[in-house]
């Protein structure tokens, strides 16, 4: 235990809070914009704490009435932006959850094989998988558009889920492989000698040990899909749109609807936050503790 003087402890505490404030302030300001009326957003000097909160922006974005003055149920903003973002939020959730599930499932199975099984080209496989992420996504977007057109996957959940899962797979495989590599091979071998089949070893012994890794990988995949813009923009038209793409529709020919955009952004944070919170409790280290003597 290092003994520190009172003043140095105070300084550390202060520095800690200062850093937190630095990172938290933009988020806070973004949230205040969501709760401000149109004119207050542009006040100078900006009203950071003393403003009259209103849910008007949320009413407009989700096309509901909470008693803050939103009456007309307009479909389209004067400049071309969309109302009624509720279904778009739902699109985002469906795509992010399912593409994450798909990517994590495939990555877990694939990386276990890469980590444990001997087959030709095993060592080149990982770099090959990774290389698919090395070109800029925009280079892929147009070819994928034409492929999707032929496969009738344009403007469908399946299409977007597939492309998001595909984009996530290389990193997910790499990440999961490192978690499997951390598990001593003797554990598999011991179970093999105990009479277990490969599948049983995977399911009963190894999978519970990489729970933390799966959680970490899922968080990364989810965030990617939740914020992905390019592929949703090119591969969908009217059938579905995710939050990042519809947010851009608030930038219209007659101006940017900052309040609406902030309201949608704030609302969009909630599902992502819930997902990460649910997964976070599995993000524990040391699951292999006690298995082998190191």
């Amino acid at each position, binding site marked *: 235990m290092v003994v520190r003087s009172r003043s140095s402890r105070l300084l550390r505490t202060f520095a800690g809070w200062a850093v937190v404030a630095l990172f938290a302030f933009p988020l806070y300001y973004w949230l205040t914009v969501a709760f401000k009326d149109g004119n207050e957003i542009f006040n100078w000097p900006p009203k950071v704490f003393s403003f009259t909160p209103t849910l008007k922006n949320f009413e407009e974005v989700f096309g509901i009435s909470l008693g803050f003055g939103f009456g007309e149920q307009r479909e389209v903003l004067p400049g071309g932006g969309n109302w009624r973002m509720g279904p778009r939020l739902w699109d985002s959730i469906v795509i992010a959850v399912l593409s994450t599930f798909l990517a994590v499932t495939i990555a877990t199975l694939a990386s276990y094989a890469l980590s444990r099984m001997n087959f030709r080209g095993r060592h080149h496989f990982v770099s090959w998988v990774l290389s698919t992420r090395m070109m800029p996504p925009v280079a892929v977007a147009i070819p994928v558009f034409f492929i999707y057109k032929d496969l009738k996957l344009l403007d469908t959940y399946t299409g977007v889920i597939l492309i998001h899962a595909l984009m996530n797979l290389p990193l997910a495989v790499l990440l999961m492989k490192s978690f499997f590599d951390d598990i*001593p091979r*003797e*554990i598999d*071998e*011991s*179970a*093999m*000698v*105990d*009479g*277990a*089949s490969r599948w*049983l070893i995977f399911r009963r*012994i190894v999978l*519970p*040990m990489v729970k933390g890794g799966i959680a970490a990988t899922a968080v990364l995949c989810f965030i990617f899909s939740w914020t992905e813009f390019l592929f949703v923009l090119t591969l969908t038209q009217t059938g579905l749109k995710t939050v990042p793409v519809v947010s851009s529709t608030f930038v219209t020919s007659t101006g940017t609807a900052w309040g609406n955009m902030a309201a949608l952004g704030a609302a969009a944070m909630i599902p992502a936050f819930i997902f990460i919170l649910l997964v976070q409790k599995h993000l524990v280290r*040391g*699951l*292999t*503790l*006690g*298995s*082998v*003597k*190191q």
Partner: protein
Amino acid sequence: MATVEYRKVGKSFGSVEVLKDLSLEIEDGAFVVLLGASGCGKTTLLRMTAGLETVTAGEVVIDGRVVNDMHPRDRDIAMVFQNYALYPTMKVRDNIGFSLEVAKKSKAEIARKVEEAARVLNLTEYLDRKPAELSGGQRQRVAMGRAMVRDAKVFLFDEPLSNLDAKLRAHMRVEIRQLHDRLGATTIYVTHDQIEAMTMADKIVLMKGGKIIQEGSPDDLYDRPNSRFVAEFIGSPQINLLDGRIEAEEGAVRFRARHLVLDLPQAYAAHAGKAVACGIRPNDVTLDPDGAITGTLQIAEKTGADVQFHLDVEGTEFVAVAPRSAYRHGGERMSFAIDPEKLHVFDEASGERISV
């Protein structure tokens, strides 16, 4: 229970040949120790027996069946790993019972066998703990329990005691041997510790560079090492080796290393003139003022009942063991005598024992 046989077994990892043309027969119910320094191929041989390494040449035979291409789970073997390899997410109870569960035994039978194993291994009160909540010795016992419940044909141990402290190791040696005597299963035990080998084995197989150097009972290896390497490997404190020559003069056969002259049995007369290394076990000498081995005492170490004298004999370090009562301080001249029958003579060039 089963016999295990290796027929001209070889193993290569790429261009590295780890085992060469190795043949060995292990009797039903025997406790065989594969002994050797790290890298000698002993663990590889064990893993090939378990089916965890492929066999690149020859045949591994268990109970009369060639098992080269048989999956580990079909070989009916139990193995204890050096690092225990417990299943960290399972309780001790489920760790021990896993193999039975896989074999689809009834719940009642699993519970009975697990509890029986836990009783024998003093693990009853820990059955509902996870491996992380156990001490090293307890984890080791869980690993043994996992092997025990199997009723396997062959038990394989891969340096199971190397992570334990000295006291626990001595205790577990006895437990493992008792376990073997009770179960009567064929056991192959890998270690680099010659004390473990000497205390536990029915038969020791000493390996070096992927080959068997000598196999036999602990007494065979201790009393009649077939080479200088074996003599140096077996026995603690290590055997003393003095370099010199065999001389036959006036009807007497002697070993001479500069001023040191030791009588040899007459049978060595045929090897007169040969450059040899003479091995003398520290426990075989007796303190004797008229003894032929004379040197200057460098240091004396008390080990309890005995004292180990480290002497300078003809410029070579020489260790002698004597009862504690003989203790004295460094700097003195001391003499020891030895029975000629207890000398080990090795050819200087080949290192092989000169048998007479």
